[in-house]
């Protein structure tokens, strides 16, 4: 039962903090405010060029392995009750992702240029 209260309080706290910022911050706009910040100096090109694919690749790989770590948290909670098979399941799960990691490594996804 108290788990519900914990989520309620922290959820409300997050909502209040965000909305206070939106409510109380004075909103004054001027022509320069919406332009991107480039250390204040005049812009060298009018539109934003497409980013090279390398950035996207690194971002995606990071996301992948970050999500993998997220699954360890609930597992760690119930690790005690599951006794034997817990380790085997996690090893299988980790192994699959490790194979993916080695494949990406050999393919040269981590070399920059």
């Amino acid at each position, binding site marked *: 039962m108290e788990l519900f209260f914990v989520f309620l309080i922290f959820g409300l706290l997050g909502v209040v903090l965000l909305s206070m910022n939106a409510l109380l911050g004075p909103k004054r706009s001027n022509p320069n405010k919406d332009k991107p910040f*480039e*250390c*204040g*100096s005049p*812009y*060298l*090109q009018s539109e934003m*060029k497409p*980013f*090279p694919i*390398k*950035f996207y690749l690194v971002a995606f790989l990071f996301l992948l392995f970050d999500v993998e770590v997220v699954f360890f948290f609930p597992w760690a909670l119930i690790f005690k009750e599951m006794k034997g098979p817990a380790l085997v399941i996690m090893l299988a799960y980790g192994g699959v992702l490790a194979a993916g990691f080695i494949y990406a490594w050999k393919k040269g996804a981590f070399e*920059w*240029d």
Partner: protein
Amino acid sequence: MTARIQKQANPESLLLNMGPSHPAMHGAVRIMLELDGERILNSEVEVGYLHRGFEKTCENRTYFNLLIYTDRLNYVSPLINNVGYVMTIEKMLSLQVPERAQYIRVLMSELSRISDHLTCLAAMAMECAAFTVFLYNIKAREFIWDVIEATTGARMTTSYIRIGGVRADLRPDYPESVQKAVLETRKVLKDVHGLLDKNKIFLSRTRDIGLMTPEDAIAYGWTGPCLRSTGICYDVRKAHPYLVYDRLNFDIPLGERGDNYDRYMVRMEEMEQSLRIVEQCLARIPKSPGRVMADGLEPAEAIRASRLKKPGQAIRLSPNLEGAEKDVYKNIMADDPRFIIPPKEEAYTSIEGLISHFKFFMKGHGIRPPKGEVYFSVEGGNGEVGYYIVSDGSDKPYRLHLRAPCLHLLASLEDLIKGRLVADIIPTFGSMNIILGELDR
């Protein structure tokens, strides 16, 4: 207005501003980068954001007033600029500075050089994310600035070194405070050596990055720690010894490869050598009679008394004249009445002192070097700081040009970072210690 790089850039590469108000650009350098991902294809450095019209102002101020402008040139080691400017004029006037004043000048410029290197390495390390080194170095610099402030009255813009000598004598307790500063700096240097010398991240960001060959360094006119990091031994203190540098023994650290790490290491070693010089100065400085603030007549009474006959008693001077009393004056100032202000006691009580004091500050009189030109250079924090003064006999310099070592260092930045990653600009720019005050003048 389209910059050069916009004309040369091919359409699909990204053009990025590393603009003047960027934390790593020391506030006023703009680098326009043509990028392919993280790789720099082409770059253009734009300066002039801190051009304060120093050389034009020099043509409208007298020699004495220009002293304050020289502190703000290389504002990290202001006393060295003072020494350079003042010695150029003394060379023109062929003025002889007393022994103790020369030792005080060497002591002060070496302390200023240490604070220059500390600030430079602090900024460079912080930009490579070593924030602890920044805090340690600035803490050590506080101790050095305490000594400078106790002697000169100001922490940074002191204008303490005057034409003909120094403004005031050292405080009676200066050996203890200087020893304390030297001790603290040595402790901090040991910590920074431990933190950065074999630090994997710092090494991978500075080793073999910003590589400069000795021939290129000479072609760019590099001088100072950056030239010595490429292995060429040129230090104005050894090449053209001035003041008492020829009597002090210190050696010149040299690097081998001329990359960022060598520039860092040469600066660390140079701080060690400067500490040695400071200690030698403490030991060898000629003694001067103990300074005691005379508590005799008030100036007003002394003037009334001097109308009848020479007042026997001493005169109580205002506290900010401490250190420039008459008995000490001849040790810290040359004794050529044409170019030196007489001590205050004489200015109050004797007619010659009053006249020479008045004439010194009167328009059109004061310090008037003979017609002609002179070039004199000292070893500044970043290299050879040279003053080229053309005088036409009046009390204002006809033309004053400063040889800024940073201009030559920054002129080579475009070649150093071509083909490297964006992250390599920061340590390269940081290790060169670009000070915009003297670069843009």
